[in-house]
C-alpha cells in the first residue's frame, strides 16, 4: 500500500492513528527520522510498516526510527522493523533509537538488536550518520 509521505509528515502536527500510535516524519540532510509514540502491536504495526516503506522510498542515507517513546512493542512491530531492514539493504543505514526495557527486551530476545544499529538517543543516531 502506498501512502503519500505527506500523510505522515510534518514537524508540528503528528498524524494520529485512532488506535494509539503516533508517527511523525522528519527530513534532515542525509537522514529521515521517524518518531513513533504509543503502542506498536498487531493493530498498529501496519501503520509503522507504511511509514517505514514510505521513508525507505525516499532513499535517504540513513533511516532513524526513534522508538524511545514507545510504551509497548509486540512481535508485529519487530516484523515491521525486520521488513524495513530488508528494504534498506546495503544502501540505507537503519538505526533504532531506544533506551527503555519495553523496547530493548523484545529486540534482544529475538536477536534483532544484533542485526540493527540500536542507539540510546536520536542525537547519537544522527551523530554517526
Amino acid at each position: 500500500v502506498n501512502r503519500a509521505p505527506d500523510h505522515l509528515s510534518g514537524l508540528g502536527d503528528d498524524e494520529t492513528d485512532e488506535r494509539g500510535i503516533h508517527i511523525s516524519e522528519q527530513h534532515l540532510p542525509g537522514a529521515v527520522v521517524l518518531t513513533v509514540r504509543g503502542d506498536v502491536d498487531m493493530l498498529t504495526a501496519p501503520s509503522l510498516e507504511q511509514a517505514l516503506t514510505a521513508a525507505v522510498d525516499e532513499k535517504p542515507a540513513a533511516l532513524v526510527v526513534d522508538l524511545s517513546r514507545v510504551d509497548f512493542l509486540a512481535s508485529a512491530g519487530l516484523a515491521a522493523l525486520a521488513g524495513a531492514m530488508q528494504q534498506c539493504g546495503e544502501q540505507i543505514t537503519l538505526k533504532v533509537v531506544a533506551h527503555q526495557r519495553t523496547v530493548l527486551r523484545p529486540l534482544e530476545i529475538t536477536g534483532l538488536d544484533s542485526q540493527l544499529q540500536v542507539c540510546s538517543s536520536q542525537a547519537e543516531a544522527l551523530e554517526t550518520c
Partner: protein
Amino acid sequence: MTERRELSAPPALHCRIPAVAEQLPALRHALREWAVRLGLGADDVEDLTLAGYEAMANVVAHAYGGEPGQLELRAECDPDKGLAVVTVSDQGQWRPPSPAPGPLHGRGLPLIRQLGHAEIDNSDGGTTVRMAWKLPG
C-alpha cells in the same frame, strides 16, 4: 480490597472473547493491571503483559484460519507453587511453525517462551499456552 493489598491476591482474571485483534489491547491492559495489583516487579509486569499479548495474538493470527473463534484468557495465582499463572487457550488449530521461519515473522513464540517460561499444549481440540512467573515474597 483490603488496605494491605500486597498480602491479598487480586481476584483471578477470566474471560472468553471473540479472537479478534481489536479485543486485545483491553485484555492486555487488564492483564497488566492484574500483575501490578499482584505486586510483581516492574520487569515481570512488562514480561507478563508482552508474553500474554503474544499468546493472544497467536490465537488471533493462527488458531482459526480466518474463521471466527473464541479466545480464553485466565490469570490466577497458584499459592502452593508461588506462581502467577497466565493461560491462553483456543479451540482451533495452529499452523505448524515452519522449520525455518522467514526473516519477517515467527518472533511471537520465542517471546512467549523466553518471557513466560511457557508450556505449550497442542492437541486436536485446540492449543493452550501456560506461562508462569514467581510471586513476590
